[in-house]
């Protein structure tokens, strides 16, 4: 892989870790990676144990699957179980538990649930099945909104009458604000979301240093991106600076993707409020289908139950999403709640902090370091 090797170079990593260790000195730092993609990279490449122990990475709310509340999953299942409905979704959402099981269970019971890689695939399914109504379960932050927007435009241009979108799109800034307002979390800065920023740019995060006095570095998703971003945050601390910096400049422009933003404005509008799992209702934090596209809005076309369902008592996803506890501190982690039998969303998505820790990270720090520094034949870990 010519395109990724340069971002996974072990020699560069060692040099960066050395610089980070020197720069951090004896001070304690707590940086939140907002995006679930970062959480995944951190565990997938064992970055947690490469960093010195006085730098803690706190996992944030930027996992789109994780933040969808249970009531919305129930609505999705209700839609999927309507006669003559083909319900289409990204694969991740299939296993998220609602109060009556998951979409996978609905499928096993006979509902026509199909997973798609692109919302445009749903349009194709609608064209191929004119006698059925196709619903696309739209989830995600600003990263995935443009593709749903393009899909809505396409559906309208084609004059489809059997296609609609169940929008659960959310926006990144409001939950960041909610976390900054939370009194029980003392952060030293943010690794800003890379994918979201390709769309929204870096300007929306200015309030973080300006109002809350915390530095932000928008970070890429390769392991070296993460390390370099941590280094840049430490540099800001050393220099007494507090600003929004862009480590992911090879992809993210300060103004974002203007064309995508315009398209989003035409196809979606802000909801007055939206429920987030664990974070509760946050005002102006989510998008519904624009009035101009009401014919393609599943919430207009169907009378969904729309019942608010409380999370299971044992589940502490909310605390995990806010960074208030680590995945392993949840009482049901790895016993009652596992990737096979998840209770909460954080154990479902590969970007969820619990799933990432369970699948990749369950190693003692010293064991991980010993294995990581060894080589076959050196008897590592024996």
């Amino acid at each position, binding site marked *: *892989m010519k395109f*990724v090797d340069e971002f*996974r170079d*072990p020699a560069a*990593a*060692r040099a960066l870790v050395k610089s980070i260790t020197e720069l951090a000195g004896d001070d304690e730092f707590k940086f939140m990676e907002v995006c679930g993609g970062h959480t995944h990279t951190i*565990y*997938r*490449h*064992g*970055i947690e*144990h*490469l960093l010195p122990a006085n730098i803690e990475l706190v996992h944030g709310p930027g996992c789109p699957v994780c933040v969808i509340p249970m009531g919305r999953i129930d609505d999705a299942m209700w839609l999927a179980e309507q006669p003559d409905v083909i319900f289409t979704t990204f*694969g991740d959402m299939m*296993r998220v538990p609602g109060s009556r099981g998951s979409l*996978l*269970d609905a*499928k*096993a*019971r006979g509902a026509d649930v199909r997973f798609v*890689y*692109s919302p445009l*695939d749903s349009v194709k399914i609608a064209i191929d099945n004119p006698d059925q109504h196709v619903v696309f379960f739209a989830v995600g932050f600003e990263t995935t909104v443009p593709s749903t927007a393009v899909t809505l435009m396409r559906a309208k241009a084609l004059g489809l009458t059997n296609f609609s979108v169940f929008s659960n799109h959310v926006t990144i800034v409001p939950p960041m604000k909610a976390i900054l307002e939370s009194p029980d979390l003392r952060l030293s800065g943010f690794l800003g979301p890379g994918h979201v920023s390709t769309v929204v740019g870096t300007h929306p995060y200015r309030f973080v240093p300006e109002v809350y006095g915390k530095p932000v570095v928008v970070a890429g998703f390769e*392991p070296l991106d993460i390390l370099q971003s941590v280094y840049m945050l430490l540099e800001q601390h050393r220099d007494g600076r507090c600003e929004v910096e862009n480590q992911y400049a090879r992809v993210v422009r300060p103004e974002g993707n203007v064309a995508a933003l315009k398209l989003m404005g035409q196809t979606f509008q802000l909801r007055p409020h939206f429920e987030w799992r664990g974070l509760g209702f946050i005002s102006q934090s989510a998008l519904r289908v624009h009035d101009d596209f009401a014919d393609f809005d599943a919430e207009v076309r169907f009378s969904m139950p729309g019942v608010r369902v409380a999370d299971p008592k044992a589940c502490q996803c909310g605390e995990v999403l806010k960074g208030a506890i*680590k995945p*392993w*501190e949840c009482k049901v*982690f*790895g*016993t009652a709640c*596992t*990737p*096979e*039998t998840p209770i909460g969303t954080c154990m479902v998505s*590969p970007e969820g902090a619990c799933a990432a820790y*369970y*699948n*990749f*990270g*369950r*190693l*003692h720090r010293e*064991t*991980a*370091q010993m*294995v*990581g*520094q*060894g*080589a*076959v*034949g050196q*008897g*590592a*870990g*024996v």
Partner: protein
Amino acid sequence: MTSERLTPSASQVPDPEDRTRLRVEEFRKRRPRLIDEVVTMAHGAGGKSSAALVDHVFVEAFRNPLLEQLGDGALLRLPSGERLVFSTDSFVVQPIDFPGGTIGDLAINGTVNDLAVSGAVPQWISVAFVLEEGFPIDRLRQLAADMRAAADAAGVQIVTGDTKVVPHGSADGLYITTAGVGVVPADRELSPAAVRPGDRLIVSGTIADHGMAVMLARGNLAIEADIESDTAPVNGLVEALLAAAPSTRWMRDATRGGLGTVCNELAQTVGLGVVIDEGLLPIDPTVLGCCDMLGIDPIYVANEGKFVAVVAAEEAEAAVAALRGLPGGAQAAVIGEVIAEPAGIVAMRTPFGGTRIVDMLVGDPLPRIC
């Protein structure tokens, strides 16, 4: 650390994170629960759900000592003292033709390989067809020719069979079930009990080719790449390996669930740890690129002509050299080793210098792959 196993119970450990880890490990060792009311695709994916279904429904009903070994094949001892391995497998791959193979050669190679990695020399194969009304005879004839060619290549005979037809709509084209019998040479002894820390893990060639070839052949991803299935018999490679490394303790073909699943089965069977060095894994760059794009870990993608072997460290080099000298073994490599701790866990050393766990796969990213 000494080679003696450290197994404190969770409540004795002072660090809360370590305590959670131990509790999770204890929990993972429990018999998997079957909580579903209906069969889901996950029950066919080869992961924990499959294990739960087999354990609670089939083993429960059929229980006997031969079955309970739950290997790729059953090891049977004849009154004469000779040993046979008996194995069976069904094939439902979609599409039935894909770059590098068809459901026909897959059905033969799958059973041949199960016999071979169990230590047997594959000899006789049975074939059963479930055909959907309307299936073109010409296509069936071609698939039969593929099966004959695969059997000849593996040196086995197709000696018995069965045919059933179901109404249009009751099956998806055709399904094939094969069973096979192989003879275990008298002096051959494979034993997971002999696996010890320091033993090397060898893989017989590049991984993830079959799964990605089938996935791309379905044509619903906007990706075009030149990837061929690796479907092939491995019995020739197995014989070469066993000749070069008589110490060979354990073998598995890394089919459904891929290398990651096989290594987890190893770690759990022998109660030791396994370290894989990600940088040593033979993966075709195109396959790796597609996996990266789709967010799929190649370590969980199915192979149909590759196996993993555990051999003594001092014979690892000779084993790899023997495999590399044969067709289908050119990319064979040592990919890791067995370690004492962490017991029961597969750890991956990343080229980046980090470490992570490789767990059993949950859910099925690629259904109907074989």
